[in-house]
């Protein structure tokens, strides 16, 4: 039986913290915000790694491997595209 009440506290605190922090994000950066949070939520890769690596059943290995691939696509692609976008935001003229 997982420690339900402490999990719920963690969820609530993280959600409130998230709301407070994200409210401050400039609307300029809403697109990169979405791609960054999407990469972060690909943290489900750690559960997928466990499934693909422990090989407890054929089904769990297959689904785990697919999940590793899907989540890792978001991790690699998400952080890269976020950085590509953020690099473009410049305050001053860069051309001579």
């Amino acid at each position, binding site marked *: 039986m997982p420690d339900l009440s402490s*999990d719920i506290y963690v969820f609530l605190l*993280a959600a409130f913290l998230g709301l407070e922090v994200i409210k401050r994000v400039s609307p300029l950066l*809403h697109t990169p915000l979405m791609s960054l949070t999407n*990469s*972060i939520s690909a943290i*489900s890769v750690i559960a997928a790694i466990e499934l*693909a*690596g422990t090989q407890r059943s054929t089904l769990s290995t297959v689904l785990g491997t697919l999940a590793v691939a899907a989540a890792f696509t978001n*991790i690699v692609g998400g952080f890269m595209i976020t950085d590509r*976008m953020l690099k473009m935001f410049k305050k001053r003229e860069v051309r001579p």
Partner: protein
Amino acid sequence: MNAILAAVEQTSGEHGMATAFATASYVIAAALFVLSLKWLSAPSTARRGNLAGEIGMTLAILGALVQHDIISYRWIITGFVVGAAAGAPMAIWMRMTAVPQRTALSHAFGALAAALVGTAHYYLYDLHNAPPTSVVMGFLCLEVLLGGLTFTGSLMAFGKLQEILPTRPIVFKNQNVFNLSILGAAIISAVLLTIHPQWSWLFPILLVLAVTFGVLLIIPIGGADMPTVIALLNSYAGLSASMMGFVLNSKLLIIAGALDGASGFILSVIMCRAMNRSFTNVLFGAFGQVQTSAAGAGEKKAVKSAQADEVAQILGAAQNVIVIPGYGMAVAQAQHKVRELYDQLTKRGVNVKFAIHPVAGRMPGHMNVLLAEAEIPYDRLVEMDDINGEFPQCDVALVIGANDVVNPAARHDKSSPIYGMPILNADKAKTVVAIKRSMNPGFAGIDNELYTLDRTLMLFGDAKAVISATARELAGSNGH
């Protein structure tokens, strides 16, 4: 820290070290994820934020890899290779105008991972002898329900944004009743499974209902509502990961998922507010159907059209110009030509600003990214509330492929579907120049009276071509 120390104390040897490392890496990863979002608040620290996210993710993955019960890395590495091969090329070569599609696709992948992991966990239980408790099962059902519907919903959104699927809402009789009964059936299955976790025959039914509802949810949603829907799907994908955290008792998953869920939620609230509509209205209103009759009945007012050289003259003589970009600019890939025009005008001492409506484009922040790509300094990009007061002093409002966000009907026409939506006050400018492909109504299918105002000039044509021509005219008369 206590958790780390406890982990170190209670275990010893190689396995103990591995567990301690995993625990520590998860704690640090969670902290880095929060910092990463904090640093994203301003463009000056945003790249550091992304780096913090990358480091956190790398640590967490390393922590997961050293766990001692992993017996083979073969399939993990296969997954990494496939994922990297799919993700990296997309990130490197994709056009910035395609960001909404890529985002929808990444929500689909994230949700797919959650649904697959949830399914795998369910079938790993010895359902006859040691089924999951109802609490665990409840979270597991939520995980696959949210994951499943977000997976297909996001794929549908991708199809609409990529224009593989028709972008207009598709409606049929009793659609909402039908959709809600599918959702209802899914929820009932989830509740029954929570009460009777061993009823394994019901689990595939829950999955099918979830993915079916995902498709049905997006079918009646039009292109103009995509910013809200993408944000909402973002939130669901995050919540699904959070639910997985409850099933596995993993605080890191709960935190990361909650952050993503909160972000998607805030963005969708901002989008709804920017359209003065409710979630229910966006999801079930089938906004943007072709309006039959209604508006078409009124008399057609004449529009004044102009050529690029006239527009160049007007712009060149202005002191203050406000550019209003919309989805049309993205479709025409015109952002770099807009930059040329901006350069020419700035060279002549014209003060050029850009007015950004929160729902311009197909996802939150879409216009900002495109204009930043064209290297327009971000201090020139001004939000709606901050710039609306400046329109009366503005000589020319240049509307590029925007439509509903500048339609004055939103202010006074109670019969208009966009009545009450906050708009950019382009009609208050001394002169309005609107670039448009033709007089066809915009995505919401509503006539725009801005185009028939006395001080409005229409510049018909492909945005990229006509802006390029205007910039050339200005360069030519500048003595180049």
